[in-house]
């Protein structure tokens, strides 16, 4: 066995952990399939009656839905490791400082590993099956090779933005006694505003034009619409730049909260 970089090693552990639960993996795939199908049925009903006012190509929307289902674990807001909350609340996080890696980087890697490993187990079957489905239901190929490349880049940036957001929630525990309240409020709001429930183009124009410039627009919305060419040209460049900006801003903010929180903890003596 070769030696792994510590961050890669997290990924390997998460993958092994995920593979232990094979029934859970299949169940997850089936569940996401069903939900995706129901969504498509709903939008098809809308499309049938209102073709002229439909704000996206139906084929693009169908791809949006399947990609979201396939990469759900990568992009959702609720992929937490609950022991990390406890670690902060109990003050045991101070012990993590003994390890030879920075806390922010380590937890960022842990969260990214959690997401990537969960998605890795599930996206394959969903992508393959949904690509094989007949015309109105199936996943469509990307708009172009260029769009596909931009999609991959944007997907990685989205993972970064989402992880940075999760870390802010983790580290906010330095300041509140219980993380549960914050989570139960923040998760549904984020899920809604980032387009995971209703894609941004289907929201009222004033709302979606504001959301574009917020961190929410830099999450699932970006890669999934780039894939089908719904975002292209100048808008594409702008979207990618916004993603880079939010990744930097949220990472910076998270790191700062962590830094100050740890300082406070050390002063109080845990």
């Amino acid at each position, binding site marked *: 066995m070769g030696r792994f970089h510590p961050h890669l090693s997290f990924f*390997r552990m998460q*993958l*092994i952990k995920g*593979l*232990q639960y*094979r029934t859970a993996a299949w169940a997850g795939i089936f569940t996401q399939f069903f939900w995706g199908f129901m969504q498509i049925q709903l939008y098809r009903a809308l499309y049938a009656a209102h073709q002229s006012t439909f704000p996206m190509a139906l084929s693009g929307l169908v791809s949006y839905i399947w990609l979201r289902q396939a990469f759900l674990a990568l992009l959702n807001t609720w992929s937490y490791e609950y022991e990390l909350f406890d670690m902060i609340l109990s003050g045991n996080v101070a012990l993590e400082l003994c390890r030879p890696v920075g806390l922010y980087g380590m937890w960022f890697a842990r969260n990214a590993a959690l997401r990537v490993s969960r998605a890795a187990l599930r996206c394959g079957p969903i992508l393959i099956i949904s690509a094989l489905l007949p015309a109105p239901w199936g996943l469509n190929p990307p708009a172009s090779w260029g769009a596909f490349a931009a999609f991959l880049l944007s997907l990685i940036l989205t993972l970064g933005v989402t992880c940075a957001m999760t870390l802010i929630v983790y580290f906010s525990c330095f300041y509140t006694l219980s993380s549960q309240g914050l989570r139960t409020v923040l998760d549904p709001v984020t899920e809604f505003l980032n387009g995971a429930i209703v894609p941004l183009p289907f929201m009222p124009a004033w709302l979606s034009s504001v959301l574009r410039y917020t961190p929410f627009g830099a999450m699932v919305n970006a890669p999934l619409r780039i894939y089908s060419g719904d975002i292209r040209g100048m808008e594409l460049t702008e979207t990618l730049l916004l993603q880079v900006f939010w990744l930097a801003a949220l990472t910076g903010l998270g790191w700062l909260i962590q830094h100050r929180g740890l300082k406070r903890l050390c002063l109080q003596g845990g």
Partner: protein
Amino acid sequence: MIQVEHLTKSYRVSRRSGGLIKAVAALGKRDTERVVALDDLSFTVSDGEIVGYIGPNGAGKSTTIKILSGILTPDSGECLVDGRVPWRERKRHVARIGVVFGQRSQLWWDVPVIDSFDLLKDIYRVDASRYKKNLDELTGLLDLETLLRTPARQLSLGQRMRCEVAAALLHDPDLLFLDEPTIGLDAVSKLALRKFILERNRARGTTVLLTTHDMQDIEALATRVLLIGRGKLLLDGSFEDVRASLPGTGSLDEMAAALYRRYGV
């Protein structure tokens, strides 16, 4: 009180091997294996005895307790507790027994202990006057006065264990199962708990079945020792007999280790 005859119980457990590649391979199939927990186990316990039920980890102790308390049904064998077959008449049976798990709690974590007691009163249908009498008595004996108004989460382990024991006795059970009651307790709490159990046994004739890894518990309490290993009964005798049969071992823990070695468990 307790008659156990030819009790047998086995479980299916799945085997998994380490490593990423093996984990991928295991997606296809999974090996299961039968593990015998109890193998033709027989013993009897008479009214008013305090029996120490000992054996190494995984010997089948908690399986026995679970069968005797009506949680599990054995594969085969007979078992009568005070004339009842535990798993066939669960409700009638558990109303007459008390169980304390040292590592688990039956108190509500966030509310004052007295509220948990009050709820148990209703669960066990203890009438008001009897409840009051028992509560006063237990409060006195276990020194709970100041603890009753405190939420369970704020109690120390020793304080909580005293409350757990009281909770298990509110309905006057004739039979008490104690599963590692002194685990993690400090010396003072251990002594207090042992004293209480002895007194309860003398005053009321409550039969006690005690599983523990702490040989001092056994020495202080048990009138009789049952040693179980790999699901079989290996030894049945008084603590003094066991001690005498192993001369030259110093501490109680060394004695227990020597005992396990002798039976190869």
